[in-house]
């Protein structure tokens, strides 16, 4: 063993098990975006919008990667910029933007306000890549609200702006050791920073960009449910990395977070399906309904996966799925929902589910769930950390912190989105493709269609190759 210890090909602070878990978790989260979300949404849109959807997903993901290494990572997880007196809101508002491109920046031990309990067991590259995967999926989520009319160029400008001014700031405040983190608010893996924010942004943006062509709205049939299944399956299992990566160590709580994620998701999928069978107009179980439920469970458990016990996971699964089912079926008839064309309903399955999941921490978080610190049978207690909800502590403190944080995320994401979109509108001369373009879809925007048929096509260009 000595021998094995002395010649490790990496620094003593690095633990290959923890580093491996974090990199795998990051890869799983990456797969949730590409191909996950890309084909899930690609299968849900009309045939004429498949290519546009795919390219927005791939290009959006790529834009975030660059923003992240150039300035985003350090704004969210780097040393605080301290724009105000220590402890004040502004002091913990955002980090100082600078790139992480040098070999120092990449290979040194990770350090961040996101974890002050135990030194990281991996380098900055690992933390930055894991968090990059988180950041990159977020715009892809709210893309679901904007499909079928958002101008491609506007997308290319909006994504970097939004990541910089909305995502990085919320991440710094809640995860990066910022104001809300100091206050004691928690968000295990992004119920607020990612899902609530994406839901609100999508909804507000859908309102500002305006609805799809009425003709499209009236015939918005999905084109391929099997492709939806491919994306949905990757989402579910990829979420093991999403929630399992949050503790930053391959410890006991990581395992619990993974288990709880699957418990809540299974519960939520079945809840929605049974609601469809019992209360829907046709009383039939639908596949896309089940997938909606699945997403509600995944999103709902995200803020608390490692803070709750299995019991809590079941409660969260039932509540998030049930509430969103009701919202999904009744809110669309009510303002403002009736006035906004949120194409895939991101405000419901991500916004509302994320909000409820985040608040439920204040109710069902189990203080017995040790996030860090020696756990289980031979418990030792030092450096131990956990969160307690009202059911266990009798105190509403945590719920109150969760509520305040949610209020901020909703308000800030909405306001910032409005401002950023006005800028984009000015820069790109509009936020919508022209109506003639919308009538045609992919062929007008990209000269490509998702399922070309050769019979009627004649090769004209001279590329001798393809």
């Amino acid at each position, binding site marked *: 063993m000595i021998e094995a210890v002395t010649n490790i090909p990496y620094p003593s602070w690095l633990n290959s098990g923890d580093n491996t878990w974090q990199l795998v978790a990051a890869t799983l989260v990456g797969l949730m975006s590409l191909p996950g979300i890309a084909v899930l949404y690609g299968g849900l849109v009309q045939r004429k919008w498949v290519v546009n959807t795919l390219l927005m997903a791939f290009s959006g993901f790529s834009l975030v990667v660059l923003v992240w290494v150039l300035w985003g990572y350090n704004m969210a997880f780097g040393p605080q910029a301290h724009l105000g007196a220590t402890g004040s809101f502004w002091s913990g508002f955002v980090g100082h933007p600078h790139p992480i491109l040098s070999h120092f920046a990449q290979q040194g031990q990770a350090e961040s306000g996101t974890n002050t309990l135990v030194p990281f067991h991996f380098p900055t590259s690992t933390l930055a890549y894991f968090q990059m995967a988180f950041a990159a999926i977020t715009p892809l989520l709210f893309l679901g609200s904007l499909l079928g009319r958002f101008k491609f160029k506007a997308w290319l400008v909006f994504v970097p702006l939004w990541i910089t001014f909305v995502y990085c700031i919320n991440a710094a405040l809640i995860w990066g050791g910022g104001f809300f983190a100091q206050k004691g608010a928690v968000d295990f893996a992004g119920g607020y920073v990612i899902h609530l924010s994406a839901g609100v942004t999508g909804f507000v943006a859908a309102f500002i960009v305006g609805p799809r062509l009425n003709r499209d709205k009236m*015939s*918005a049939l*999905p084109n391929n449910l099997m492709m939806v299944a491919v994306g949905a399956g990757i989402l579910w299992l990829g979420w093991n990395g999403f929630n399992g990566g949050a503790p930053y160590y391959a410890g006991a709580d990581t395992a619990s977070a993974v288990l709880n994620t699957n418990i809540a998701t299974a519960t939520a999928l079945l809840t929605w399906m049974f609601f469809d069978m019992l209360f*829907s107009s*046709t009383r039939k179980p*639908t596949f*896309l309904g089940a997938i909606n439920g699945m997403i509600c469970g995944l999103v709902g458990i995200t803020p608390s996966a490692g803070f709750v016990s299995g019991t809590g996971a079941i409660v969260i699964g039932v509540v998030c799925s049930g509430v969103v089912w009701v919202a999904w079926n009744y809110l669309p008839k009510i303002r403002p929902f009736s006035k906004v064309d949120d194409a895939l*309903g991101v405000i419901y399955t991500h916004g509302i589910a994320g909000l409820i999941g985040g608040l439920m921490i204040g109710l069902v978080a189990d203080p017995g769930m040790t996030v860090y610190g020696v756990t289980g049978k031979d418990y030792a207690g030092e450096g131990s950390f956990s969160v307690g909800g009202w059911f266990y502590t009798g105190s509403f403190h945590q719920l109150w912190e969760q509520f305040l944080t949610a209020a901020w995320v909703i308000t800030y994401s909405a306001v910032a989105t409005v401002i950023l979109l006005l800028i984009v509108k000015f820069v790109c001369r509009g936020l919508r493709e022209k109506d003639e373009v919308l009538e045609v879809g992919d062929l007008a925007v990209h000269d490509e269609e998702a399922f070309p048929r050769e019979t009627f096509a004649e090769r004209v260009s001279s590329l001798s190759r393809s």
Partner: protein
Amino acid sequence: MKLVVAVLKPFKLDDVKERLKTLGVAGMTITEAQGFGRQRGHTEVYRGAEYEVDFVPKIRMEVLIDDAEVDAVVDAIVDAASTGKIGDGKVWVIPVESAVRVRTGERGADAL
């Protein structure tokens, strides 16, 4: 020469085809079609939104034949395609002024 056009339930195609073979019909041309009529369509529901589909899948068959065979062919199709249930389809006959076999240029009856 006549063109017999038949609109049928898809799963009846084989039966009709086999029956026509026995009559010595040399060939036919099929297209997939959608029918509207007494036979009701169905409702589809995607993510809570309901869509009404008034059309039902049908097979459209065209058979080019000599005048003499018209009745036999029509009767054969009707007989083979019928299930007695609504939506069995229609058969109609259209006059054809001339026909050519592309491969040989043969005209009229020889074209079949």
